[in-house]
């Protein structure tokens, strides 16, 4: 689906005059226009090929002569790395094709000679949604023997989960079992992806070049969506976007802070579609850097050389290193430096669950305080991952907002272990003044797209800030005059405080841009249950008893209310079940279903609810209901943007 382009011209049978003509025709075209010309030529060539085998040009690459790169990506990192490999391979003159896993033609696997797979592992050992079929096929009985395959797998994961890189490991083992030979050994990249990925890509490229060096260099151009991504700005060269608005969109008494951020993309050449994410390069909170320097007893002004650069320590910590998220390597270094027995114990494989809990619960500052060690600045920097950008699902459609991009940001800001804690990017964005600048890039997400057919219905499930892309979807469908119906499920804690974009949804309902809106406010309905009890007694009950009881029930020893609270929270998945019949009917009518938000609980609960309602309303067995949902995933009618 995506582009892989060779900028160096291969040998051609065209005569000099034709080449000159082409040069004249294409003079002054922008890169995007030139890519379009290339795509147009490629389409012509494909037509000619289909017209007759005799017209097949000599430049067609045989499977044996090309590197196939397949990626499975949930948040876009695997895709980005795969694209990087494709670009570098092309630049090196290798014939290459780049495919998203669900676009990979499975019957071609047997003929494949050079295969690179870049794939992430989700949550508890799940493949990304776009790679489920691919992973199943390779694991399954129908997978062909692959005696002549050279392959390499780069797995992506998060070592704080027990099933770290499980999918990458599984594919690597299975391809070998099928007879393949590794041209690069399995790479297991942690959250600091580049640390492992960069050397792995270097090796993979080198080996592929060696293996394919006899082949004729050929360009294979399949540019579709990706053309616009070849903008001047990228992950590595972000655009400094001006902050147009930074507005809190929860009420003053909300337990959380959520911001609506509007950024200008004017002059950036960046383009996006609803469903895409915006990458943000944050700076760490200055107050956190100060906490670190205090805990480390180190001077922030001190110049420190690391990886060929010399910066002040404060600068390293503020702008270059990940200091809000714990990693295993950091814990390991800390444990070894301080010879802390309990930390060392935690690093044993049997303790992986406890380590994972620690890595999610605590921030590095907590460990720095808990396990004081005399750190050398250089050792500290080596133990820390490079700062990575954060991705936010875009909350606007360019059709509605022009050269702007809007985000919905939950500000991570909490007290723990007696001190303030912050999230890096959300704190950075929340502190951004209007007219301030934020380094950004577009991370496209082809798996999270509105249906090409504007008459299709869509169902959007986006509790919390998961609602962001659906604001973009509804804007887009409104602006483009799509005729399909739009159904949104939104949930949060409190109706009065946390109904994100409430007035916009109300307007959309009035205008007919949104057709249904179902809501779940988890902390509201609970309270009803607890409170009704005191007042809804029968008229014959002595009210004085009720009043006494009511006063008593405030005592800390009575936790009847807490019990009621636990058992009566209402979430979006409950609303899905309540509307099961209709929801199923929409899906059977071809509706596309989207889920965005928390992956740890919500996405799983929603997934389970969908299976349940298919069983209940489609008369399917549990297995068939599962298969039905998997099929929706395969068809791309059930897309998830979860994190």
């Amino acid at each position, binding site marked *: 689906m995506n582009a892989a382009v060779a900028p160096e011209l291969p040998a051609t049978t065209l005569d000099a005059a034709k080449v000159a003509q082409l040069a004249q025709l294409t003079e002054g075209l922008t890169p995007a226009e030139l890519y379009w010309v290339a795509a147009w030529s490629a389409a012509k060539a494909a037509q000619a090929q289909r017209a007759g085998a005799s017209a097949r040009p000599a430049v067609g690459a045989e499977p044996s002569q090309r590197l196939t790169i397949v990626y499975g990506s949930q948040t876009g990192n695997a895709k980005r790395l795969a694209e990087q490999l494709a670009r570098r391979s092309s630049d090196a003159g290798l014939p290459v094709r780049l495919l998203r896993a669900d676009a990979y033609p499975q019957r071609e696997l047997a003929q494949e000679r050079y295969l690179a797979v870049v794939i992430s592992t989700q949550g508890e050992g799940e493949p990304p949604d776009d790679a489920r079929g691919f992973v199943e096929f390779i694991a399954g009985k129908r997978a062909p023997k692959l005696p002549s395959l050279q392959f390499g797998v780069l797995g992506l994961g998060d070592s704080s989960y027990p099933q770290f890189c499980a999918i990458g490991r599984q594919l690597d083992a299975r391809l070998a079992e099928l007879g393949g030979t590794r041209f690069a050994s399995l790479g297991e990249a942690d959250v600091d992806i580049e640390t492992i990925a960069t050397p792995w890509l270097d090796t993979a490229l080198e080996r592929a070049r060696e293996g394919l060096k006899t082949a004729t260099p050929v360009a294979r151009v399949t540019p579709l969506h990706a053309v616009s991504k070849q903008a001047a700005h990228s992950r590595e060269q972000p655009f400094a976007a001006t902050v147009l608005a930074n507005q809190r*969109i929860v*009420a003053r008494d909300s337990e959380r802070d959520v911001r609506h951020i509007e950024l200008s993309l004017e002059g950036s050449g960046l383009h996006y579609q609803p469903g895409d994410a915006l990458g943000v390069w944050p700076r760490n909170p200055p107050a956190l850097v100060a906490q670190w320097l205090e805990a480390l007893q180190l001077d922030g002004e001190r110049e420190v050389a690391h990886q060929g650069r010399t910066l002040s320590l404060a600068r390293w910590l503020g702008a270059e290193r990940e200091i809000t998220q714990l990693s295993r390597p950091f814990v390991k270094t800390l444990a070894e430096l301080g010879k802390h027995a309990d930390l060392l114990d935690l690093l044993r494989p049997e303790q992986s669950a406890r380590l994972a809990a620690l890595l999610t619960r605590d921030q590095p500052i907590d460990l720095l305080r808990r396990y004081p060690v005399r750190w050398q600045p250089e050792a500290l920097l080596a133990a820390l991952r490079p700062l990575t950008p954060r991705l936010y699902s875009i909350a606007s459609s360019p059709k509605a907002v022009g050269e702007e991009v809007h985000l919905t940001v939950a500000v991570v800001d909490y007290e723990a272990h007696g001190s303030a804690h912050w999230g890096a990017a959300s704190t950075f964005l929340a502190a951004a003044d209007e007219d301030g600048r934020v380094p950004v890039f577009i991370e496209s997400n082809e798996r999270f797209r509105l249906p090409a057919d504007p008459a299709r219905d869509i169902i959007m499930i986006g509790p919390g800030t998961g609602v962001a892309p659906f604001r973009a979807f509804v804007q887009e469908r409104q602006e483009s005059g799509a005729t399909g119906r739009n159904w949104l499920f939104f949930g949060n804690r409190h109706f009065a405080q946390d109904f*994100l974009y409430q*007035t916009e949804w*109300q307007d959309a309902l009035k205008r007919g841009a949104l057709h249904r*809106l179902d809501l779940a406010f988890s902390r509201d309905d609970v309270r009803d249950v607890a*409170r009704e009890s005191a*007042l*809804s007694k029968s008229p014959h009950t002595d009210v004085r008893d009720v009043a006494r009881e009511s006063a008593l029930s405030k005592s800390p020893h009575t936790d009847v209310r807490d019990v009621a609270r636990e058992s009566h929270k209402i979430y979006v998945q409950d609303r899905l079940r309540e509307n099961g019949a209709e929801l199923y009917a929409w899906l059977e009518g071809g509706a596309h279903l989207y889920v965005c938000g928390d992956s740890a609980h919500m996405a799983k609960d929603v997934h389970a609810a969908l299976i349940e309602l298919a069983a209940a309303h489609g008369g399917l067995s549990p297995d068939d209901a599962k298969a039905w949902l998997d099929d929706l995933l395969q068809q791309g009618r059930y897309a998830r943007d979860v994190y």
Partner: protein
Amino acid sequence: MTTPLSDFEHVKAASRFLRGGIAEGLADPVTGAIGEDDGKLLKFHGSYQQDDRDLRDERRRQKLEPAYSFMLRARLPGGVVTPAQWLVFDCIAREHANGTLRITTRQTFQWHGIIKRKLKPTIAAIHHALATTIAACGDVVRNVVSTANPVESPAHAITYAWAAKLSEDLAPKTRAYHEIWLDGEQLVGQHAADRPEAEPLYGATYLPRKFKIGLAIPPLNDVDVFAQDLGLIAIIEQGELQGFNVAVGGGMGATHNDATTYPRLADVIGFVTPGQLYAVAETAVAVQRDWGNRSERKHARLKYTLDHRGLDAFVAELQSRLGFALQPPRPFRFDHNGDRYGWIEGHDGRWHLTLHIESGRLADVGERRALTGLRELALVHTGDFRLTCNQNLIVANVEAADRARIDAIVEAHGLDGYRRQSAIRRHAVACVALPTCGLAMAESERYLPALLPKLEAALERHGLADAPILLRLSGCPNGCSRPYLGEIALVGRGPGRYDLRLGADFSGQRLNQVYRENVDEAAILEALDPLFARYAAGRTQGEGFGDFLLRTGILAPVSPRRIPATVVA
């Protein structure tokens, strides 16, 4: 009538006896509000949709709708509340509302800040406490008020019984209330479900505007009987209730800069026996139903009907429909329109304790834990409670032996302010205004605590600390706090700005007049200071501040305004 009906007349007509789309609006989870027309219909059910105006602009920027909530008002004829009811009302205040109970100037309770989905369970809880909210607001006969302080206990009891009867019998008969709020449930049968629905008195469009009835027992005019559409003055001779003088056409509401609107005191038109009372009240309501202005709501009160059609024409129509003539009014005399604080012994040896409640707001704030104190009282009290039209509270019918216990609770919760507060503080009345009231143009209840010390200081300087001066604050000209009967009154014009009105008497029988228009606090204090000085120097024994201003010519008497015939169709 050639002039078209006002929009709301059409809404009422189409409402199917006050149903409208209220039930659907309550069920809509996307908004904390209900539709605009339904909001108006909701008043008949006893509730106003409001929003926290302090937060309005902030929430607009947060892409959140206004912080909607509902004010719910009970209908408590004569302001009588049993301890059992009190405990339920207290529970509602704490659990469904904003943690306060508000005593209104119509002798009932208001709860503020009830969110939409709590409205139904709250109304149901009130119903289960054998009270109701229907007709607490709306174009109907509102809560019927009656003198709260039982001076002549037997006559008081009979007068209260009349208030209760009028309130109950003149209430709307629609089944919509039970249908919407009580799932059709009936606790005390009044409307059998199989009878066809009808409003024999009101008809499908109810009254043109609200209709207020009050009963006063001289010499106390605590209900401000001349501010009522229908004021009834009990005539008691030798301890026996003889009947009532009838006064019609009182009303406080006005609109700034509109001379066709004005406050008006009721005219006494005759005397009726107790046996005639109900027919007179019902017929007066019926004439206003038929004659009232249904094109222009701000001219729809009975006072404008009278001034437009003529008082004589109204009385003639009333007597013609009744089939009998009213007797000439009997003599009466009112001493004052305030409350009598402290303990008073009734004729039967039972005691009544009147407590001052600032602005009628029962809340727990710091040391002053009025809400909790009253709950404690309700748990032990064997008599009842009376709310007054001056926003105060009477712990009524206390056995002599229980007085000490009541006093202890009162003192422990800071409710004994009546013992030492300045006179002006004890005679102050303020409407709710900001942040909840949608009509407010300026602060009222929230401003009173800031204003009072300044007035107290000025009065103190002039040796007037003990002068009982009626102070009334209103956030707008509509007059919930009956500001036009204040000896000193501030009527809100805009943030921090008021009309300063002076010159009412001390018994609710003379309206005040504008002394300074649209001024701020500094100008108000500056205007009052020299007047206090002259009052201190020149007042006669027991002379009220308002009376003094007129006697000495500082204020000239003003003739009552009347609506020009041209503005009423």
